[in-house]
């Protein structure tokens, strides 16, 4: 039965089957790397004992910050009442949820004993530790974003229930709580004020968790590169522009892969978002300029700044952080918005994402290199096994997104509250 349905899918849409197969192969690669780390030693994931946080942590920061950025952007519709943004709120909530969950998966795989984390974080949390706060806030945020997504897709699921039969009908009956129609919980779920309340709570916890993520690094006084009040603020800004870029990329690619025409209203919104993204990138350049200029006149932060300007990280800094993530996308995005080119918006957003990925990597590694390893800088290329894990988790994330896109009603349209 299952085999026959798989064959049906392959026959009907070979492209989709190929895509799923590729993602499954990537996941298998990740599982192989994970098993290898268990069988041999966790050491195969690390290239230097002196730099314990490398690509898994930087990818975690990239994904989780992007997810939090999406949460903030989503608040523009759900909390601040911009109707245009409400069209994309289902996709934003789903993307925010999946990026944060899979980002967290990197941390789980990086920890020595992940099974102890929920136990001791609950029994003996350290309120002086930013990681403890970050974990707690993200856990609460995930609960709120799940409720938010549920409330957003509930009307469409109820509609689907009317036209479905058999097993799917039973599942939808459970999900939509149809059996408890007269119960007070169902009445509460149908209260029109609830989505805004949940969205507000999600926004507050998500933004606080993001500021706390920046604080995890910024609290480390022994790491001159990370230390200070700059990074919690920059994390917020960079998360928002990463969120915009991620949303634009996934929306455009999803429409293209489905071979659907993007409606004029959504196109208009995409171009507006591209302009906002360009503005945020310009503000980001101001932030970086501020950091560099204040760092040059301060003896304690001169070293880290010079590490970026002239040191071993200068190539990635100038090419990726300044060029690919900031200056070039501003021009590309503004031109694309002006000429109404969807391809241009996609190019600009992809540039931002690639640049931001390298920026996060550089941020995490450079922070540990200075001031401890001034001479004989070890190669900071990640190990192949670590790359396998990164690819495997990314594959799992894309698989969940693809399946969610296929089976959940995430298509851009105004939901009930907005009407």
């Amino acid at each position, binding site marked *: 039965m299952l085999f026959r349905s798989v064959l049906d899918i392959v026959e009907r849409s070979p492209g989709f089957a190929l895509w799923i197969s590729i993602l499954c192969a990537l996941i298998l690669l990740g599982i192989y790397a994970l098993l290898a780390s268990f069988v041999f030693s966790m050491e195969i994931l690390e290239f230097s*004992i002196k730099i*314990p946080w490398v690509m898994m942590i930087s990818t975690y920061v990239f994904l989780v910050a992007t997810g939090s950025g999406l949460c903030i952007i989503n608040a523009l519709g759900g909390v*601040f009442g911009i109707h245009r943004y409400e069209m994309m709120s289902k996709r934003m909530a789903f993307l925010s949820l999946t990026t944060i969950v899979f980002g967290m998966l990197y941390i789980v795989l990086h920890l020595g004993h992940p099974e102890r984390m929920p136990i001791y974080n609950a029994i003996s949390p350290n309120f002086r530790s*930013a990681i403890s706060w970050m974990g707690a806030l993200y856990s609460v945020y995930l609960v709120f974003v799940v409720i938010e997504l549920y409330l957003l897709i509930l009307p469409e699921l109820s509609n689907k229930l009317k036209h479905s039969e058999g097993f799917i009908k039973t599942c939808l009956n459970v999900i939509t709580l149809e059996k408890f129609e007269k119960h007070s919980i169902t009445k509460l779920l149908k209260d029109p004020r609830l989505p805004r309340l949940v969205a507000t709570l999600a926004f507050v916890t998500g933004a606080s968790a993001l500021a706390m993520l920046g604080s995890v690094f910024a609290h480390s006084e022994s790491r001159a590169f990370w230390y200070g009040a700059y990074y919690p603020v920059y994390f*917020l800004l960079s998360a928002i522009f990463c969120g915009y870029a991620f949303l634009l990329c996934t929306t455009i690619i999803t429409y293209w892969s489905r071979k659907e025409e993007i409606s004029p209203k959504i196109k208009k919104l995409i171009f507006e978002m591209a302009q906002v993204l360009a503005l945020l990138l310009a503000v980001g350049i101001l932030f970086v300029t501020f950091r560099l200029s204040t760092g040059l006149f301060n003896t304690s932060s001169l070293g880290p700044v010079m590490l970026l300007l002239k040191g071993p990280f200068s190539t990635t800094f100038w090419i990726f952080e300044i060029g690919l993530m900031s200056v070039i996308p501003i021009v590309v995005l503004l031109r694309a918005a002006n000429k109404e080119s969807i391809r241009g918006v996609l190019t600009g957003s992809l540039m931002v994402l690639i640049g931001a990925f390298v920026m996060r990597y550089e941020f995490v590694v450079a922070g540990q290199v200075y001031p401890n390893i001034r001479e004989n800088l070890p190669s900071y290329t990640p190990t192949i096994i670590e790359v396998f894990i990164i690819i495997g988790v990314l594959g799992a994330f894309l698989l969940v997104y693809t399946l969610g896109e296929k089976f959940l009603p995430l298509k851009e349209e105004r939901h009930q509250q907005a009407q």
Partner: protein
Amino acid sequence: MNKTTGKIGRRRFLKLMSIASFYGVLGSAGVTRAQPLRYGKLVDTTRCIGCKRCMSACKRWNQLKIERDELETDRETDLTANNWVVVNLRADAKNREQRTYDHWSCQHCIEPACAGVCPVSAITKLSTGNVVINEKKCIGCRYCYQACPFKVPRFDFEKRVTRKCTLCNDRILLNYSKPACVAACPVQALSFGYKHEIILVAKQRVFKKKNARYILGLTEAGGTDMLTILPAKPKDLGLVVAPNKVVNQNLDKIRITATGIMAASVIAGAMYSYAQKTQHLDHKFDE
């Protein structure tokens, strides 16, 4: 007490209670004022001959593996999950002929930054002075390594936890009185005792000896319970230089996090303003 009925009267009861609470407060104040006697370890690098018996004793007592030839050669050895104490030959950058063996391990800070950042409170500063990691609680996040001003705690890839010198907490509990490394030192380069006593000894040695010039641990990271007498400044010997203040103070952490939260509030304000100023776009959009 009322002799006829055998009961305590109301007035007498109140009198007894007030006396009891007065003495109770006095007693507890005395307890809180009494500073527990902290231990400390003194390393005199000017006496060290580089025999590495301290390293060997540490490995034996704590059942740590020998990783390579660290006990036999003068090759530079780094702290690892199996090397809680290392002895390395160091030259003074200002006087290359001045060479000294440096005994390096956890400095047991008075206010340890690692304990402040551990998310599950697995690291504690004991009243005796030892900073210890509860290996059964450690989740292996390595945040302590990032926070430590001396870069000491190291990850054990086999046990999947972070490990470091405990100042032989278990030996002190067993009344062996000295850590294994101190007990093994043949030239009394290492000594162990009450903190206030070893500070005095260290100062006297620096005052008397010509080649002893610097005491590491008096001010570094707000003070540590391991003091090291050095022939030159730590920077000139290539040692990790920690700031002369308590690292990762709680108020500092609050200041940094508050800046982030304030920035989030400013962003919320900007979002509100964006929503208000683009209302006309919404109206066009709805048409």
